[in-house]
């Protein structure tokens, strides 16, 4: 029977990740997550060090 609605085609070749890929991805997520916490603390310190620049006047 002819469908009433055309559904967007999804790739037939895309597959779920295999076990090795899943493990690699979980490892990636875990490292990125740890990095984000570390960097955020560093970023706050950097921002404080940079604050003085905002007080510089420009007019030349």
């Amino acid at each position, binding site marked *: 029977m002819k469908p009433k609605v055309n559904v967007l085609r999804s790739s037939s*070749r*895309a*597959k779920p*990740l295999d076990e090795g890929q899943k493990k690699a991805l979980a490892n990636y997520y875990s490292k990125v997550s740890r990095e984000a916490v570390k960097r*955020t603390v560093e970023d706050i310190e950097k921002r404080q060090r940079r604050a003085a620049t*905002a007080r510089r*006047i*420009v*007019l030349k």
Partner: protein
Amino acid sequence: MYVWINIEKPEDYDALLNVGPSSDLNFAAVYELKEVARKLKTTLRPRVRKLLIELSYVDKDYRSTFYHFYAKKGRQYRGNSVRIHLFGATVSFDADHLILSRPGHDNPSDDYFGFITLRPTYKFTVGRSVVRPDAIEGAAGLALMSSYRVHVLGHELLAVGFPWMEQHSDIAVCAHVACWSILRHYANQVRKYREFLTHDITRLAQAFDPGGLLPSLGLYVEHAERIFSEAGTYPLVISMPKDPTKQERKDFHRQLFAYLDSGFPLYVVIKDDPADHAVAAIGYRSNNSAVIPQTGIAYAADMIEALILSDDNHMPYRDLRWKTFPGQSYRLDDVIAFIAPLPDKVFLPAEHVENLVPYILNDLPLDELPDQDDLVLRYFVTTAALIHKQMREAPSQFDPELINEIMQLPMAQYVWVMEFARKKDWPNSHISGRAIIDATAGVYEEDALWAIYDRKTALLFDRRGGGDPKTLSLNTPASAPYAKMIPNLDPIRV
């Protein structure tokens, strides 16, 4: 009211001194024509061969300052500006019938290099201008440009370039002008931003009306931040730390390049004595023959040899290089802060994007991405629409299934794109893989990827629906390498 000047040699620009009506003895002094002729003859390329001078032109930006400032002064200031149109050799002017024509061609616009307005302010008279970069001696590289409709004598011409003017020095200084030029570009390029005239910019800097004196005393960086915010953008201020280490300098320049390469014009603060200077960075030039370090990750940002500026102290498209050169007293290392006027939907900062690199290279199962000692890295913000457009326009680079997947992948409007190139491929603008990262993600979101692919494998992530990631084995044609994207900057014709 209209004067046509043929330019055969630089001295022909001196004819500008005599364009005023014979009864108007002050004309040349009011518009500072001697100084204007000197600037044009020393900065315009020989391909500019004809000038059409409109002796009486109502310029909206000058008028905004005239109504609120110059009309209040004891000295009498005129209300009208002069406008100079720049043409190439193929355009002619019929002075009897006031017709511009380009024999053998349809449109004078194709040989039109834009316009310069002159304010009747005696000093610093060059006002709102849009000049095509290939008209300027020495301009080269990639620059932000857009097309401005120009109406003269019933003709509609297109001026292509980035807005520029000299500072007034009283009602607006360099910082106002840098904000004005960026916001005028946005207003012309992006429908959601409205146009702000010169005096509007002056008033936006403070919560109160700063009157006539305060603007001449300059702006703090936070005032410029306020201007961009009031104008509807979401400014991000990035500053160099005091006494920076070598690594901190590199990090700063890489962030600056990432936002500029994304197509955002930047408000740039340059250290100077006794007062700092502000300009708009509107493009860059890379050194394609630069020696790429053999070890460690090489960054596209580190291969920049010059920023291209819209600087009120010089004609537009002046370089800012690592070393000073005749005509430029600043260096790239003198940049101490910049403001990126971002859209509202960019939440992930450039520095966090760079932090992902080691984990992408080490942990994701993509064998064809280069190792760190063979990697040139570039990252920038673009839109999902531009990614789709690039795939549609160059389909031979991609496995058709990858195009199909990316077209259907739900993405936010803005994405960070990270491009991975082998060092040998970089000079040819070829890359080995690309990551597409959600620019609306927060820094604590470890799963910010929409997609990443090399020549053999793609990983696709359903961030919107929360479905499981998918993988696609690619049959990428070996004969068509991935080309690096050029987001929003256009090459300057030399």
